[in-house]
């Protein structure tokens, strides 16, 4: 690999630009391709598949023409609505799992730097915050406040986005009333099926840290086993 290629890969990662490194496994020759780049339709399809599945694609059984397409996608993001107790372990664990975390909460007593050292905090109203974050297919949103005033505006934005995961903390009962409110607001049942509620895999979690494990596990499951 030429140093210039390595520099370009690292530059793309730093600037959050999706690229694919195409390596000829015979000659070692390499090219860096963006979405839509490629010598022909087959190659453009390989580039787009590698980026979409976030998984390398290798072409052809013919040894001499094998090309390895390795995607470098922008980082996964997790937006937590509610700077509550569970957000503390969940934000830490999500960072370890490779997510860029933003915690949204307009209540300054909750969203305090001292409670979340080193985590990005957004104190604007949740719908504004989520709009400006620009949720994409590599974003997960989890609402944690239990307060419709804060959770619902976030869900309105999340449900209209490509976010791969939308989850809501709360009991079955609060989730049922949440769905009722969202239906009233005009969302269809099909749209509301995207919401995981109550969020988290059923592993019998009790403490905030254990609940964070179950939530993160469900996010991972949704991403990797769609």
């Amino acid at each position, binding site marked *: 690999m030429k140093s210039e290629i390595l520099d370009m890969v690292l530059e793309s990662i730093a600037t959050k630009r999706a690229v694919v490194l195409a*390596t000829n496994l015979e000659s070692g020759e390499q090219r860096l391709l963006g979405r839509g780049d490629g010598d022909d339709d087959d190659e453009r399809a390989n580039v787009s598949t590698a980026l979409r599945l976030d*998984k390398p694609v290798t072409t052809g059984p013919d040894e001499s023409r094998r090309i*390895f397409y390795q995607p470098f996608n922008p980082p996964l993001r997790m937006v937590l609505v509610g700077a509550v107790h569970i957000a503390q372990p969940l934000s830490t664990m999500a960072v370890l799992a490779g997510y860029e975390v933003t915690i949204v909460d307009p209540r300054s007593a909750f969203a305090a730097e001292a409670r979340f050292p080193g985590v990005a905090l957004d104190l604007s109203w949740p719908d504004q915050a989520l709009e400006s974050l620009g949720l994409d297919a590599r974003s997960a949103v989890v609402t944690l406040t239990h307060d419709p005033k804060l959770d619902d505006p976030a869900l309105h934005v999340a449900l209209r986005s490509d976010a791969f995961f939308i989850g809501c903390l709360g009991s079955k009962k609060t989730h049922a009333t949440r769905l009722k409110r969202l239906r009233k607001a005009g969302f269809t049942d099909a749209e509301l099926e995207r919401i995981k509620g109550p969020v988290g895999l059923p592993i019998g979690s009790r403490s905030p840290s254990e609940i964070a494990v179950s939530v993160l596990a469900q996010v991972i499951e949704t991403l990797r086993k769609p």
Partner: protein
Amino acid sequence: MSDQSETEVLLAARQWKAAGHRVALATVVKTWGSSPRPAGSHLAVRDDSHFLGSVSGGCVEGRVVEEALGVMKTGEPKLVEFGVSNDEAWEVGLACGGRVEIFVEAIE
């Protein structure tokens, strides 16, 4: 696929190169059956055998480092394949029963 730890491996490769070391990069290209690290996983190797990252659960890293040292000398990239280990023969391989193909290249 640019999760943090993979990025760290690439950053280390660049840093070592800039510090005047010879450096090689090993990348998992293909896996069969159960194997611990998915395609796209990286191992960066320095000319003093120091390495970062992983291409298996620790089963074949030793051999990959040897291959990497060879590739640094020749400059020719190489595809290497590892299969199931044979405990009795002390062969290098994967205890899990999987097979893995690894591309090893020098950073030039």
